């Protein structure tokens, strides 16, 4: 049984299976990834690292493409909201 991975999304703990992307973890937590220029909530669109709608702050780095980054234990994920 592979070890589950615990990350935080906007301060809340989310536990995921290994191989889960940060985008999927954020969606599980019910968080949209970012807020658009006009203030709309946005989530992933392309799922493959091209649209940049999945940008979030990961361990302090802004504008990280969360759909191409796998969850690592202890990751601190913050969305725009």
């Amino acid at each position, binding site marked *: 049984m592979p070890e589950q991975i615990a990350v935080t999304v906007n301060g809340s703990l989310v536990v995921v299976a290994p191989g889960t992307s940060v985008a999927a973890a954020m969606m599980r937590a019910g968080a949209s990834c970012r807020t658009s220029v006009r203030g*709309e*909530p946005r989530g992933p*669109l392309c*799922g493959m690292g*091209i649209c940049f709608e999945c940008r979030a702050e990961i361990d302090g780095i802004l504008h990280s493409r969360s759909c*191409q980054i796998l969850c690592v234990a202890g990751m601190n994920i913050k969305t725009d909201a």
Partner: protein
Amino acid sequence: MLSSRPQFDVLVVGGGPAGIAAAVSAAQSGKRVAIADDNPALGGQIWRGETIHSDPSARAWSSQLRESSVELFPGARIFDQPAPGVLNAETMDGSMVFEYGKLILATGARERFLPFPGWTLPNVMGAGALQALAKAGLPIQGKRVVVAGTGPLLLAVASYLNQRGAIVVAICEQASLATLGAFGLRLFEHPGKIAQAWGLHRELARVRLLTSAWPMAAVGNQILESVVMSVKGTQQRISCDYLACGFHLVPNTELAALVGCRLEGGFVQVDELQTTSVPNIFCAGEPAGIGGVDLALVEGQIAGLAASGHGAAAEKLRRQRAKLQSFARSLEKTFQLRPELKRLAAPETIVCRCEDVTLSQLQPHGSWRAAKLQSRCGMGPCQGRICGPATQFLLGWTPDSVRPPVLPVKLRNLTSESHQPKGELTSVM
């Protein structure tokens, strides 16, 4: 954060089917070969996640890859060619420089998105996108999904979701039943495809397939709640958790354009041996023409053999390629976009999602460049990859030429650490 400058006889950019086939084929003759891919794991889109282990063809090819001497660089995002034969890549924790004698571009394709009211709501995404997210841990069991848009990808995605316990409420294909029927008849020319199609048909027997159907609006308060579909002219509202909507594929040609390859009709121009207009650069798979996994595998093999100096061995594959290309052509014709789709976007519908530019803000301008300068459309991080194909379809605009970096990178990766003079190759063909 060390930078390294490995040198390869053949460098393959893209670790999907075409890239894997190319690398394996190139490595057969003992050349030093590598694959660089932007994702954390190989497989590209169609062999993403567990598929690379479960699909028989994928399993066979990745086993050959494992047994070969090909060096793998997952998580390497190529963003620039500062000098011929030199590519800069951003990695998870830094950057690196690749040097190559021959380059094979197997950069695949992305979904085409067409704007419609509400398409920017969270939980509206591409068809392949929902599948990719599901493979990366998004729970979909018991979730109601509408799959919409156009293309064979819709069936593949619906099948995947269905198998994982999602409730695929409907597949909404914009092509008409007659067009699909004609395509079905043409499948008889491609017996292998019939088995595939029949398998899918059985799999999806209980899923509603609606033709001449497209989304009129996605509705919800801050998140998707339902979709209004136009089905043969009448409107139907379907409540759902996800709308997986993509309008077939557009090739990822940005890197090819950056390194000087000529494009024709939006695709990378290649000859019989998958050679581009640049003599030491090859291209295989979707960027040379959307044709699916089987054609990608054949083109990848041809490119790999040609790049490693064994073009003659590629002769045997040419008939297969010709057959598959004919299938690809009928694919393109079948899933052509209907003119009705041009009217989906309302004046206040956002077209450029990076900068929130609406259709009405774009319409006064006569060209992509004028619209870009005046409205910022295309100036965001997606560099026009999402809004470009949409404006091309809606307004007939062709995008600008490509400049480095071909994707956003950390600023420090644009500084001189990446720009040493080219080293000497160990072997040149």
